[in-house]
């Protein structure tokens, strides 16, 4: 397999098809970021496509001082925040209601992921469910979980973004994880 740096050099020298390799390699993470922000699989997929198109248009701005993934997730982050600002607030279902209604689907999803070993592969139905689950999380929990678990930012970067101390980030993250565990663990043990 070609090294990512070589692929980036190829795109920068005009090889459009090489960009497809980058799309394929990073689409899951970008789609997850969009899904976590927007909470709707269709909307998230449209946004994720737009993220890659924007990245292609602005490829000359990619300076390699960070990884391609960091750069593209930053684009996804900005686009989703713009979309959220532009859209009217809409009612979302509660996590309890979602898990009560879709408990079997969630249970099946969790056991399938457990059985597949190292890497998880999402089906469109999984993404649809995940979107609803992200949307049902309390705002505070969702924000910190997106930054840490989906965008995989360091505690220091999260503290800068949220303008709070490192301890506050760790505390908030612990609480959010705890909340999610409390709601979801019955579906793991079943």
């Amino acid at each position, binding site marked *: 397999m070609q090294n990512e740096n070589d692929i980036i050099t190829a795109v920068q020298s005009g090889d459009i098809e090489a960009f497809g390799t980058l799309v394929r390699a990073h689409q899951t993470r970008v789609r997850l970021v969009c899904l976590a922000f927007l909470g709707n699989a269709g909307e998230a997929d449209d946004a994720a496509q737009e993220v890659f198109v924007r990245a292609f248009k602005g490829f000359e701005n990619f300076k390699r001082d960070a990884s391609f993934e960091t750069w593209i997730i930053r684009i996804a982050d900005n686009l989703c925040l713009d979309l959220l600002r532009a859209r009217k607030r809409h009612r979302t279902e509660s996590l309890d209601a979602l898990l009560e209604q879709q408990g079997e689907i969630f249970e099946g999803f969790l056991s399938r992921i457990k059985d597949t070993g190292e890497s998880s*592969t999402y089906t469109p139905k999984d993404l649809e469910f995940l979107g609803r689950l992200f949307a049902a999380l309390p705002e505070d929990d969702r924000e910190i*979980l997106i930054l840490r678990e989906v965008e995989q930012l360091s505690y220091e970067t999260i503290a800068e973004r949220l303008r709070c101390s490192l301890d506050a980030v760790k505390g908030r993250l612990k609480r959010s994880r705890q909340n999610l565990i409390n709601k979801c663990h019955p579906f793991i043990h079943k």
Partner: protein
Amino acid sequence: MSDNQEEAIWQHLSKALFGGNRTTDESLFTYRVMDQVRRLEPVLQDIAWHRFLRWAIPMLGAGVAGLALAARAPSASLLMDNALFHQQSSDTGSLSSALQEE
């Protein structure tokens, strides 16, 4: 629930909810993106061409103007000759008047 149990549950949850690195429809997704990107190619080439022209035309203009000015200006050797000639005549003048006074 013990810390270890909690950690095990979190690892499982986190892997399921956030740890995926593939999707079953990644080919379709990539195809859609690349379809848009390929349609962008002529537009981007056009933008690149305009960007090139934006600096190439003034540079070309400056080059042509420089050449025109260089062709019209008196040559350096002529200027030097004049300067030397005037200097020489002035020196000669002052020398001859000085000689005449004596």
